């Protein structure tokens, strides 16, 4: 029997699917894992404007189709980005009065 290229870590790399064979046995087939949705690094909410898929699909997409075109796009959600930017503006010693909110 040829050696399994995934070795003993196969279960970590692949997901297992139970399949009934014609002979009546139940065997496990190993399939590719499905990628999870991108989440905000600060609040954990799923990111909008991002796509997920196998690498073969993602590689064909344009950069602008994979994440929002803004600083920290695809890493922080829009709300957390805004909090960060307001915090930075204040941190630089700038005015605290702001109609942008997040300070009250």
């Amino acid at each position: 029997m040829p050696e399994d290229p995934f070795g003993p870590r196969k279960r970590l790399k692949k997901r297992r699917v139970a399949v009934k064979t014609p002979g009546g046995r139940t065997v496990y087939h190993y399939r590719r894992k499905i990628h999870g949705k991108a989440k905000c690094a600060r609040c954990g909410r799923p990111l909008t404007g991002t796509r997920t898929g196998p690498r073969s699909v993602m590689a064909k997409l344009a950069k602008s189709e994979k994440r929002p075109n803004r600083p920290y796009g695809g890493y922080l959600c829009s709300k957390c980005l805004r909090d960060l930017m307001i915090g930075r503006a204040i941190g630089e010693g700038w005015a605290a009065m702001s109609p942008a909110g997040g300070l009250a």
Partner: protein
Amino acid sequence: MGVIEVGRLCVKVAGREAGRKCVVVRIIDKNFVEITGPKSLTGVRRRRANVKHLVPLPVKIDISEGASDDEVLEALKSTAIYEELVRETKSKGGGVS
């Protein structure tokens, strides 16, 4: 309107220009203003912006309402903050000079 007024330097906190500084050139209504980087300096193009996307800074430059990008640039050059704007823009890779 408070501190959002013509000539006020602001930081954009939302969208693709988040974190970049800009100057208010015209008040459109109570929610919207016209801003400009100018683009050649900070990378913020001349556009309408919601005041909720702006955080005002304690710097105000002397420009007339509806001033052109060139006028804004000239007014900025006479302020102490100009050098800082140039430095920041370079570090962010923005601006078309």
